[in-house]
């Protein structure tokens, strides 16, 4: 009898990825001086079960590779080998490599044989005692991030990698990148990868500014001086980094390049460099930078089938609840079978019980979708470890409230924005150690990630004890960039909010960690699309706190039902500011058509729901007959003109797109108590619709 092993693959992959996470956090927790044998045991066990599993399923590449790791770990476990930083780095690199291999197998792609082989060699070198120089090679291989710092001026390099990020005013000084590239191409085989990330929306585009940046790969026997000559004129108007092209940097290039651009992966065979594995961690960690198309593909594939691990305790509660429900149901049917008026009390009691059980059941089903936030937090120690060594900063990461539970969807969607915020804190918030000592602060900076519940919301805070935000600096920068009117009067809060504007970057230097000015606006948009909001408080010289406020679950929404004619719509309660009755006198017309009204010194547009949704049965057509619901949708305020308010209720969100399609002005639908369908309004969409 043959068993179809494929059905177990998914479980194997999930377990293996979990094992890799355990190995990673174990490796990061290893204290060089005083090694805890229990930690090594944990790492060893994880490696061992991956090896066992992959052997069973016939993924020999994975099991062979893990075997080498296991041997190394085994020696450490027995105390035959000293735990050194370089060994840990190699192991960390191997974890990334394994993760890459596993996801390649999962997506039925080919494994990057070359990378794996090189990596395995590094491991074996480490295993065989490791001479001093091979160790450094291995360490470099293990950590692509550190690797970038190494720059050689040697002439024996077989090419150069130039990352060229001109400042916005480069073109005004009469320099033309195209001409420079042409000159470069005369020196050797040139490949140009353009990064379009910085390009603003067409509306915001200033044609005289340069928003592009490039990664150039120049192959051939070229002297560094020749390249320097070409960039001589623009050196002060751009951020330039020139690195010898070890093939080791190649995968990193791929990461940062445009998804569509094809990067020539050919590595000169002569070079003895070690190819880095495409670090899956860092891939996820660069939300602002375009990912290669392949990575996106992978993500899409992974999204197709997801599963969730549920605590057995939760399932037990659920089963208890269902038991209670069954009892109530049988009690009710007994009452119904021989019903007489004197049993009305019994019936009422039963219905009360039924209501309670239904509500509890609903809560515990919701609870199943809840995951501890540590699923998101757990990746940050590695991120901070890698980045702080890259930036030469000393940073301690504190995680608080890791067990706070949030909806699975929130967990999935919050992770990229959080990574961005933490990177920002690392790069801009925390000062260099020397500056910190000068400011009288401890050398070691602290970043705190904290999650807790407040009301029906979850709050996630990213706190740092760095230099804080400088209000005047932000203000000036915004004026300089033309994003703010010089005469504008801003409150502190408004000042901080400037950093959420598209195209706003205060970093004096654009690094590949952050500073391109894309990102914070994306972060805010992502969080708002989850129905949350983001706030900044800052104390100059003492650090900043960014707090994200998110609804606990995305499946249920507090709504206000409104009536327009015979139809019922739901407005998210969170977006309603107030509801008022207005008279014709308060209304002004703009260009004879657009209606506005004045609310406390602010003119707000009126959107007539019956108009834009063509509701024929609307009762109120004169503004004085109906009500105006003042709403705020992602910063845009307006008044929705409706017939009447019906009531507040919690509604279960149902997708319209599952069987139908997206409808402008409507975010989703819900089912009302009488079984009919009501549409949930999407305020920003309504505003767009009424502007058309």
């Amino acid at each position, binding site marked *: 009898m043959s068993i179809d092993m494929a059905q177990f693959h998914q479980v194997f992959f999930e377990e293996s990825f979990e094992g890799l996470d355990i190995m990673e956090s174990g490796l990061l927790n290893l204290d060089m001086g005083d090694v805890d044998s229990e930690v090594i045991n944990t790492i060893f066990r994880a490696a061992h079960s991956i090896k066992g599993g992959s052997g069973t399923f016939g993924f020999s590449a994975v099991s062979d590779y893990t075997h080498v790791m296991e041997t190394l770990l085994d020696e450490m476990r027995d105390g035959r080998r000293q735990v050194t930083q370089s060994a840990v780095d190699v192991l960390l690199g191997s974890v990334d490599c394994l993760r890459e291999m596993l996801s390649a197998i999962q997506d039925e792609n080919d494994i990057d044989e070359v990378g794996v082989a090189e990596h395995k060699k590094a491991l074996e070198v480490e295993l065989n005692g490791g001479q001093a120089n091979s160790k450094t090679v291995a360490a470099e291989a293990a950590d692509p991030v550190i690797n970038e710092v190494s720059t050689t001026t040697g002439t024996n390099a077989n090419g150069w990698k130039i990352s060229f990020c001109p400042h916005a005013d480069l073109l005004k000084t009469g320099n033309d990148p195209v001409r420079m590239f042409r000159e470069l191409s005369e020196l050797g085989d040139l490949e140009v990868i353009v990064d379009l990330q910085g390009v603003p929306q067409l509306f915001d585009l200033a044609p005289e500014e340069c928003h592009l940046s490039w990664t150039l790969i120049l192959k051939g026997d070229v002297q560094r001086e020749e390249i320097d000559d070409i960039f001589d004129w623009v050196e002060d108007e751009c951020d330039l980094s020139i690195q010898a092209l070890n093939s080791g940097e190649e995968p990193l290039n791929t990461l940062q390049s445009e998804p569509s651009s094809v990067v020539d992966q050919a590595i000169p065979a002569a070079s003895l460099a070690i190819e880095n594995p495409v670090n899956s961690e860092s891939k996820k960690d660069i939300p602002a930078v375009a990912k290669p198309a392949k990575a996106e593909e992978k993500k899409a594939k992974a999204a*197709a089938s997801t599963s969730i691990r549920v605590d057995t305790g939760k399932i037990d509660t659920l089963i208890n609840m269902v038991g209670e429900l069954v009892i109530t149901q049988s009690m009710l049917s007994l009452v119904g079978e021989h019903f007489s008026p004197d049993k009305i009390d019994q019936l009422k009691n039963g219905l009360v019980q039924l209501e309670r059980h239904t509500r509890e059941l609903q809560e515990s089903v919701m609870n199943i979708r809840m995951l501890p936030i540590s699923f998101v937090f757990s990746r940050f120690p590695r991120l901070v470890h890698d980045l702080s060594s890259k930036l030469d900063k000393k940073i301690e990461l504190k995680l608080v409230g890791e067990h706070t539970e949030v909806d699975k969807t929130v967990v999935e969607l919050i992770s990229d924005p959080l990574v961005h915020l933490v990177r920002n804190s690392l790069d801009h918030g925390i000062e260099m150690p020397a500056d910190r000592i000068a400011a009288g602060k401890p050398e070691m900076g602290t970043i705190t990630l904290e999650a807790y519940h407040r009301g029906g919301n979850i709050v996630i805070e990213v706190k740092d004890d760095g230099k804080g935000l400088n209000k005047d600096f932000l203000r000036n920068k915004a004026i300089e960039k033309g994003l703010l009117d010089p005469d504008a009067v801003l409150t502190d809060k408004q000042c901080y909010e400037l950093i959420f504007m598209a195209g706003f970057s205060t970093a004096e230097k654009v690094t590949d960690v952050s500073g391109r000015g894309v990102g914070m606006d994306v972060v805010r948009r992502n969080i708002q699309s989850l129905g949350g909001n983001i706030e900044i408080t800052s104390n100059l010289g003492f650090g900043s706190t960014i707090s994200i406020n998110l609804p606990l679950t995305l499946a249920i929404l507090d709504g206000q039902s409104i009536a327009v004619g015979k*139809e019922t719509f739901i407005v998210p309660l969170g977006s309603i500011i107030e509801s008022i009755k207005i008279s014709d006198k308060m209304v002004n017309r703009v260009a004879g058509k657009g209606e506005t009204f004045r609310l406390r010194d602010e003119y707000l547009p009126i959107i007539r729901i019956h108009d*834009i*949704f*063509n*509701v024929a049965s609307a009762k109120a057509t004169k503004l004085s007959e109906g009500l105006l619901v003042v709403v705020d949708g992602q910063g845009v305020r307006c008044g929705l003109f409706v017939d009447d308010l019906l009531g507040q209720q919690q509604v279960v969100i*149902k*997708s*319209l797109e*599952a*069987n*139908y*399609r997206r*409808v*402008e*002005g*409507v975010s989703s*639908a819900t*089912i009302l108590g009488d*079984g*009919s*369908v*009501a*549409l949930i309004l999407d305020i920003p969409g309504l505003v767009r*619709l009424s502007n058309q």
Partner: protein
Amino acid sequence: MTQETDIQEEVEETKHSNSVQFLSFTLGEEEYGVDILSVQEIRSWEPVSRIPNVPSYEKGVVNLRGAIVPIIDLRERFNLQHSEYTNLTVVVVLQTILQGRSRTMGVVVDSVSDVNNVDAQLIQSAPDFGTKVSTEFISGLALVDERMLILLDVKKLLKLDGVDDAAKDDNDDES
């Protein structure tokens, strides 16, 4: 006895010849058929929740055991004269896999008539009427008891205009 042999014959027929079963329904004088495997259920008409700013043949959405399902009026979709909905008006709930996920949609028809076995080899392709008559939803014509059955392509029927562009690619793959 004879009945039994009849049934047996019928079973034989379905087994051996390449016959496909179609659910037939009427729209005015015309008789249409859809592959029975794509029919999920048949319901009576009940009021829908209107969706704003969509073509008039997209009547709205209903709650079908917790799922939001759109209802399409086939008469209007095919530019036939609209008729009033009565208690006898029927909604055929169709289901198919589009772009890797299952989609459900209800179509309003005048009445459901029969389930017909049609030999796959006897299905003719739809004649070309030029631009006068749109044949985009028609997968073929079949003769059943001297009546013409217009066979509909459920996948194309369920793909609403402008749903998304990905649908187009999908379509290309299929054709």
